[in-house]
């Protein structure tokens, strides 16, 4: 009988006792508030958009089912299939270029029947799993050298480049940041660290001078360049490129202490907010609920991120720990970049707000990530071989 077969149902039973209510409640609360906010955000736009929140609920249901499945299967199966999943993700990314359609100058979608799929979203999870597997299989208690980092770097850089080619700067950025966060978890030998820092300073100083103009002129698209210059001069050109960012800030400010009230934010209701359902759902929320509502929301994200670190810390193995930190990093960087760009402390990069932004791939990815967290959290207790034997796992 396979160890992964029906016999593990008792283990699941044990895991059920360890159900992580805090994680579940926090995520569910965010999802509900997200839908309510989406309702407010799309209530004013034409009739066809008013169905968006219903669509979002469908996605949440699908995401919930998938998260349950993801949580139910012991995460060590993912560990075993880690590289296969990763390879699958990379293949999907390549398929984008073959099957994808060009929308607004970038191709990010695969169409299967009436469904559209954004592989770069799922790639984030596959990368986390692959990185976790690598670090799990490669324990270095005496610290890592630069050579040891080559594999994780390669694992990251392949999908990152593919996504940059789409081009999707935001998602590529998130991949890079997930890698950095996971790397920060590992112990790197002091000498290697110096090399690394030296290299960064060298590349930043010398190579940067060489590559930044090259990057600026040849790699970045016109709209990306405009976004960066707009960020550097936030109060300039309010009528033009900065109009969106400026009006997002006006909406947040218009919220004041307690907000204008649900569905009463004028910036949103009178269409001054761009992309209010995709990139800028937060200004809608901040305008409706004010500073008090906003800190509650930020606290919820903060709790989710800190909780994922706690899950990692209590994890019984390296794979689970990296998995939890990776998912936590995913949520953290998404939330931080989205809130940062809405409030104007970061440039406008197309990064969604987890569980708030409209979009199937994004919702399902985040939900599955939370499923992974739950998985690790439920199975945090190490089952000693002897106890396993007594429980009849043999």
């Amino acid at each position, binding site marked *: 009988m396979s*160890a992964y077969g029906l016999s593990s149902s008792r283990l699941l039973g044990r895991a059920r006792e360890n159900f992580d209510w805090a994680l579940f409640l926090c995520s569910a609360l965010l999802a509900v508030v997200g839908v309510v906010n989406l309702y407010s955000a799309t209530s004013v736009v034409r009739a*066809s*958009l008013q169905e*968006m929140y219903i669509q979002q609920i469908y996605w949440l249901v699908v995401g919930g089912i998938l998260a349950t499945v993801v949580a139910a299967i012991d995460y*060590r199966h993912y560990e075993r299939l880690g590289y296969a999943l990763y390879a699958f993700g990379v293949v999907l990314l390549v398929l984008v270029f073959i099957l994808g359609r060009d*929308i*607004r100058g*970038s191709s*990010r979608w695969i169409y299967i029947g009436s469904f559209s799929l954004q592989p770069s979203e799922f790639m984030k999870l596959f990368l986390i799993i692959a990185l976790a597997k690598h670090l799990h299989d490669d*324990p270095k208690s005496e610290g890592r050298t630069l050579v040891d980092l080559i594999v994780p770097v390669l694992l990251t850089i392949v999908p990152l480049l593919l996504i940059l080619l789409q081009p999707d700067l935001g998602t590529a950025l998130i991949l890079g940041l997930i890698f950095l*966060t996971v790397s*920060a*978890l*590992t*112990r790197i030998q002091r000498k290697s660290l110096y090399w690394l820092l030296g290299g960064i300073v060298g590349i930043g100083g010398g190579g940067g001078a060489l590559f930044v103009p090259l990057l600026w002129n040849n790699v970045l698209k016109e709209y990306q360049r405009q976004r960066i210059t707009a960020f550097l001069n936030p109060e300039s050109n309010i009528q033009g490129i900065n*109009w969106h960012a400026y009006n997002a*800030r*006006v*909406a947040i*400010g*218009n*919220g*004041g*202490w307690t907000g204008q009230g649900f569905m009463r934010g*004028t*910036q949103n*209701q*009178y*269409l*001054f907010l*761009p992309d209010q359902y995709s990139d800028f759902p937060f200004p809608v929320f*901040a305008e409706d609920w*004010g*500073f008090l509502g906003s*800190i509650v929301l*930020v*606290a919820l994200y*903060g709790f989710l991120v*800190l909780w994922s*670190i706690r899950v990692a*810390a209590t*994890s*019984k193995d*390296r794979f689970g*720990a990296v998995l939890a*930190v990776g998912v*936590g990093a995913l949520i*953290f960087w998404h939330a*931080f970049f989205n*809130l*940062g760009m809405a*409030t104007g*402390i970061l440039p406008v990069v197309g990064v969604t707000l987890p569980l708030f932004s*409209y*979009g199937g791939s994004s919702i399902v990815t985040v939900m599955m990530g939370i499923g992974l967290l739950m998985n690790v959290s439920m199975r945090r207790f190490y*089952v000693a*071989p002897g106890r*396993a034997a007594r429980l009849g*796992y*043999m």
Partner: protein
Amino acid sequence: MSDLLVPRSDVGEFRKRYRWLALFAFLAFLAIVVRLFQLQVVRGREFAETARENIIRRVTLPTTRGIVRDAQGKVLASSRPSYNVYLVPGRVAPSARPKKRGAPVMDEPDTFPRVADTLRLNPDERARLAQRMATACATDEDRSPCWRPILVREDLPRDIVAELKQHQVELAGAEVTPSPVRYYPYKNLGAHLVGYTAEIDAETLGRFRPQGYESLNAEERAKVNPLGYDSGDTLGATGVEHAWESYLRGQRGWEKRVVDARGRYRTGPEAERLIDAPGRQEPIPGRDLRLTVDIELTQAVEKSMRVHPAGAAVVVDVRTGRLLAVYSKPDFDPNDLSGGGGRERVRQSWAKLSTDPLHPMLDKTMSGSFQPGSTFKPFSALAALEDRLIDPEETVRCDGVVYFGRQPWHCTHVHGKVAMHDALSESCNIYFAKVAEAAGMDRIAKVAQDFGFGTKTGLGTNPEAPGRITTRSWYALRYRGQFRVGFTLNTAIGQGATTVTPLQLALAYGALANGGTLYLPQIVRAVETSDGGVVQDFPPRVHHKVAIRPENMTRVNEALWGVVNDPKGTAFPVRDAALDVAGKTGTAQTGFITHEGDDPKKAWYESRDHAWFAAFSPSKDPEIAVVVLIEHGGSGPTQAAPVALQIVREYGRLQAARAGHPTDQRQRAANAKP
């Protein structure tokens, strides 16, 4: 063996890092919270104000321009409703917009085909418009031209307007905007006097809205631009419409409306909640004007001048200085220029009017000045009589020609022996050579200036020509050579450099007729409210009394009576025994010199004399003075005099007809069709 039995990996490597990751995440979220505090609490009020400014728009409420009526209450200028249609590309043709990433496909139907059918666009216009909309919708950001309305049709026919309004839903994106158009029921009649309205031009607008106007506060704005002119506004361009603009225009009001980022107005309690008091300022309608002119008399003037291509006529009430008819020919239809029927019609009409060799846009009654010819003689005679420089009973022998040195100077006929009476009534130039000699140029000029010649009358409706009364000093400045006696002779008979406007001549004859009172010409009799109440009534204003002794005036007037009634009078052959008219004919040489290569037909016309007749009636207790100028009409007695007599006849007929029904004039005026 199961994996379960293998001890799990060592997690010690990560243990120390969690704390730092947690701290980093905490600080990052704290930074967000601090920023939120700054935006929402510290700068909250400022952003709330900006958000308000975003959605509250002050919409100007139109005012209605005042109506211009003639003395009898007939409408000469009013406003009629007119509708323009604009298309918003993004709403008429959603398919032209770029597809949006991530957003669900919006299956809004294109209303454009149906809109185009309703507007009866031809295939060519349709294609051009579709192209233009596709260009506008290259992007559909909130402020892209995709959401900016395009003007498609002006002054739509009523049935199309009704259709558009009825099917608003199916024709989404087609906006019908009212834009009242000035309407002149009498068309060409009185066009120069009433004038027309036109869209404000850049130069005028620049005067009302100088650089930096936008940054001024309301008070300063009111100072530079009290009537609130904005681009696209219409204002009076000529005539009464121009001169009385500030009365006719009215004051626009405003209303606060809630508007979204795409410029659409929102209504309903949710939107109205956002409007702060005061939410509205009512517009003040323009004042109506009651003119002194009688459009029926003007109609008669037009009819009696119908055979002549160009000229002018002025009828003035000699007892008040009120103008009863002012007519300049050729004329134009102010409806062509006031925007009715669209910009294209205005452009075409302008192109035609500005190239017409007879200058239809020129108001010849006051903007054009002409040699008065013999109609000037009474004033020369008065100059000589006043200082007793000539004995009116003494005769001069006219042989038809007189020589100054070797220069022959011709008279119209051989008059034989003439005294002043006959010299005026028969228009003898030889006699006036003697008058010129006796009085001298400066005395004649003094009397002429006393009668108002050489200066603008101050009517103000159209740019006035001052005319010219020559003096010796004027010639001294103008000619290097010696002063010649011929200059004075020319002045005495209204030739040479002397010019007058028909309006000046009419007022001067008015002064002759009423015993020496020179009135200020008056065109607006009263300012009225839209319901007929009188706001301001303008009594006649006397300019001054001329310094002429009554017996001299009487003597000249008798001679003017003789012009029409003496068997040898110049106008006797065309007189009407039933009319009591005194007047003076004039045939003024134009000094046109034919050049080689000129169009012979044109040269023939241009070289003909101006024909004049200046008259008043009745000769005792006169009521009106009439001046008729037929440009290049030829002879005054045969061309101008019959026209003037016809005008006097019509005046009498109208007076008699109205005397029969004095009470219901306004009623009849309302019923009468133009």
